[in-house]
């Protein structure tokens, strides 16, 4: 067990090292990205640029700069941004994390519940009206880009119908920490949750339905039926349990990626200053320290989520424990 964990940790370090080196090299290969000129400011005199270059250690060889950046990021933890010079990277990412976690966790609960319900219902009514309606809606959900759905939601809740009884309870866009005002936190997160979850409900519902229907062809289902189990028991206890494995694996990946910053579109549309928006802003202004930190943060979550998913699968499916 310990060996397995160590192996995983080692793999994680290698992956993160590779990602950091690639990020670093791409940055310096980008034209018009000279950090000294960008830090010095518009039309700075050449003397000023040289002073800044020296001050920030940007005149040193790339591998030294890389080493220093990693040291400041992981050991002294006092790496500061190139764009907002006084901004310490580690605390900023840590401060943005709760917003993203709130958004993604809430949405995850909704989409897992919604997705499973949709998938099971559709499978149970396969080929009949409920199935057709649910699959039609989920196809739409998958097809609509999340930023468009978000803008439409805003158009209705913040603009056109904002002053009506239906949506006057919706607060202004933005994030309120849970510790500050739980009620406001909840009200401000409702539509971001629904928006982000909508796509995944569609996706997961369709996948689960297909999975259950495929599982119905398996021998153990026939056995279960032959034993005289009720249709409902066969569906919920046997078919769904087996068909849900790929969903859990996918959930792990999606959750990790979203917590790492892939919810950027939802964050931006709803004014939630989370990790995704931080990454996006850093990329926009070519802020290497912030790009580096957020990219590593994201890769960390993907790796961790994968590990958690592996464990979950062992719990759900006894067959995997034997392997």
């Amino acid at each position, binding site marked *: 067990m310990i060996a397995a964990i160590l192996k995983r940790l080692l793999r994680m370090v290698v992956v993160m090292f590779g990602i950091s080196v690639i990020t670093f090299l791409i940055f310096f290969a980008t034209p018009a990205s000279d950090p000294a000129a960008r830090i010095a400011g518009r039309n700075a005199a050449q003397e000023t640029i040289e002073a800044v270059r020296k001050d920030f250690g940007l005149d040193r060889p790339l591998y030294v700069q890389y080493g220093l950046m990693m040291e400041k990021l992981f050991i002294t933890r006092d790496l500061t941004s190139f764009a907002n010079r006084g901004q310490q990277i580690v605390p900023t990412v840590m401060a943005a994390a709760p917003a993203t976690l709130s958004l993604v966790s809430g949405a995850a609960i909704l989409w897992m519940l919604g997705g499973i319900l949709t998938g099971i219902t559709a499978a149970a009514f396969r080929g009949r009206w409920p199935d057709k309606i649910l699959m039609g809606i989920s196809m739409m959900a998958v097809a609509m880009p999340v930023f468009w759905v978000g*803008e439409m939601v805003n158009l209705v809740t913040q603009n056109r119908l904002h002053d009506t009884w239906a949506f006057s309870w919706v607060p*202004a866009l933005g994030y309120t920490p849970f510790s500050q005002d739980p009620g406001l936190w909840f009200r401000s997160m409702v539509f971001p949750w629904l928006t982000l979850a909508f796509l995944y409900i569609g996706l997961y519902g369709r996948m689960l339905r297909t999975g259950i229907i495929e599982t119905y062809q398996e021998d153990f289902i026939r056995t279960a039926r032959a034993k005289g189990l009720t249709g409902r028991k066969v569906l919920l206890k046997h078919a769904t349990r087996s068909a849900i494995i790929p969903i859990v694996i996918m959930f792990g990946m999606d959750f990790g990626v979203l917590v790492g910053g892939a919810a950027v579109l939802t964050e931006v549309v709803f004014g939630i200053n989370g990790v995704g928006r931080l990454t996006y802003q850093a990329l926009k202004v070519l802020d290497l320290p912030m790009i580096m930190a957020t990219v590593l943060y994201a890769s960390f979550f993907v790796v961790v989520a994968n590990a958690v998913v592996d464990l979950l699968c062992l719990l759900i499916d006894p067959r995997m424990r034997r392997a």
Partner: protein
Amino acid sequence: MSESLSLMSRMRGRILCGTAALALGAAMPAFADESHYGGTLKLLGVSSEGTLDPMINYTARYWPLFIWTHDGLMAFKKVNGPESAEVVPDLAEDMPVLSNDGKTYTFKLRQGIKFSNGKDLTVEDVVASFQRIFKVSSPTSGSFYNGIVGADKCLAEAATCTLEGGVIGDAATNTITINLVAPDAEFLYKIAVPHASIVPADTITKDAGNEPIPGTGTYAFESYDPNASLIMVRNPHFQEWSKEAQPKGYVDRIEYTFGGTEEAAVNAILNGQADFMYEPVPTDRLAELSVSHPDQLRVSPLVAWWYAPLNVNIAPFNSLEARQAINYAVDRDALVSIFGGPALATPVCTILPPDMPGHVDRCDYTADPGEFWSAPDMDKALELVEASGTKGQKVTVVTDDSVTSRGVGTYLQTVLTDLGYDATVQSISGDIQFTYIQNTNNNVQISVTQWYQDYPAPSNFLNVLFGCDSFTPGSDSSVNMSGICDKGLDDRMKAAMALGSTDQEAALREWGDIDYDFMKLAPAIPMFTPKDVDLISARVGNYEFTSQFHWLVGTAWVQ
């Protein structure tokens, strides 16, 4: 001498549909009614923009805030309209006394002023603040303040900067003497911008980053998180000493929130959840707003230009005829429509914008040469291209990724194609484009960009954008994007700057001529002068606008 730039390089595309009528920013009379004091002003920005150190930050987003938290010895008048281009004594008691052929300025410091941390303002703070400009490598240290005696040493070795013989404080008489290497007619402008703010002598001598630095203004920064918000509150030690230089602000608190999208900001303002957004109103909303909420839109003139620098060092625009040809061929009216129509922009033919001192209405590159541009002269343009022998060459127009910039780029592409070139457009991120087009290593032939004044002096356009000192091959900081270095004109510009300190009128006439002579060399295509459009909430009163710092947040009230 005075280069530098662009505070106001807000690459802000501001489009409005066709001829939609807009309410012009009419100045309301600023009568001091006590009931207007108080309340919270809420500003929105999609993103924050760097350090809170007034000596380093060089953005149009924060400069309009620094003028309310910090003071210099001089200040631009905080009043509506053209008068705002005048400098008045701020922390100095009076206008300085000039001596030594205009090379020595003597200021008497006002007494009884306190910083927001409660400390008294002394001459020592002023001397230390001037040294700090160099110690923190302010972006303009080598361009605005390099004329101070001792600045050369400070630029070479910032850490030990003393400005010896340059800035001398005398506590006994409460005076500060500043010695310049040569007379500089623009010096008072340069010490009226936030980079010359006076801060306490014990302020950290590196970028203070997110930590607010105490100032003497009517407001003080309370907190700053670039990923969330910037909060300004009243400076508890502020006593109004000059209404023109630093009036008491109306609102008690200013909250600047970062995040979201421009779309969301428009909705928030219409819903009364916010009062102002920094980013331009999305083009698709402007037309609708000009009909549904005309009272909340404010249109104001800017001292700026949209232009297309032509690289005079590489083909095809190393040919004078080719540069003149494209200048003749461009239909400025078409460009104005791309930007939003005549309500939001005016065609130009000169480098100096119409509201800039020294500007003279003259236009050669038009069908009917005279004072103003009238129509393109395609026949002449085609003749010139033929004569230049550059026909058929490949040309790439580099624009940023904003809708307007791309629109302008695509238009230039069609003109170049009509002239017989093989033209393409390359759009790159707005945050990269401005440095990309400056670096000669990127071989940019023609680009679309804009320039906003730092202070109202012609050199701020001509010398900065086309002077030999602003051209550094291979550097991301080489704002002379045309790469032109005409020795004769460069000498004339230096002479005009010197002349300005003795005979302002004659200097301005000379700047007008220099502008005209530069345009004969056609190092760029002047396109149009943009206007500023602000969307404000219904409760904001006393909206005042200056070309220098745009909306004066401190003189607006919310109740």
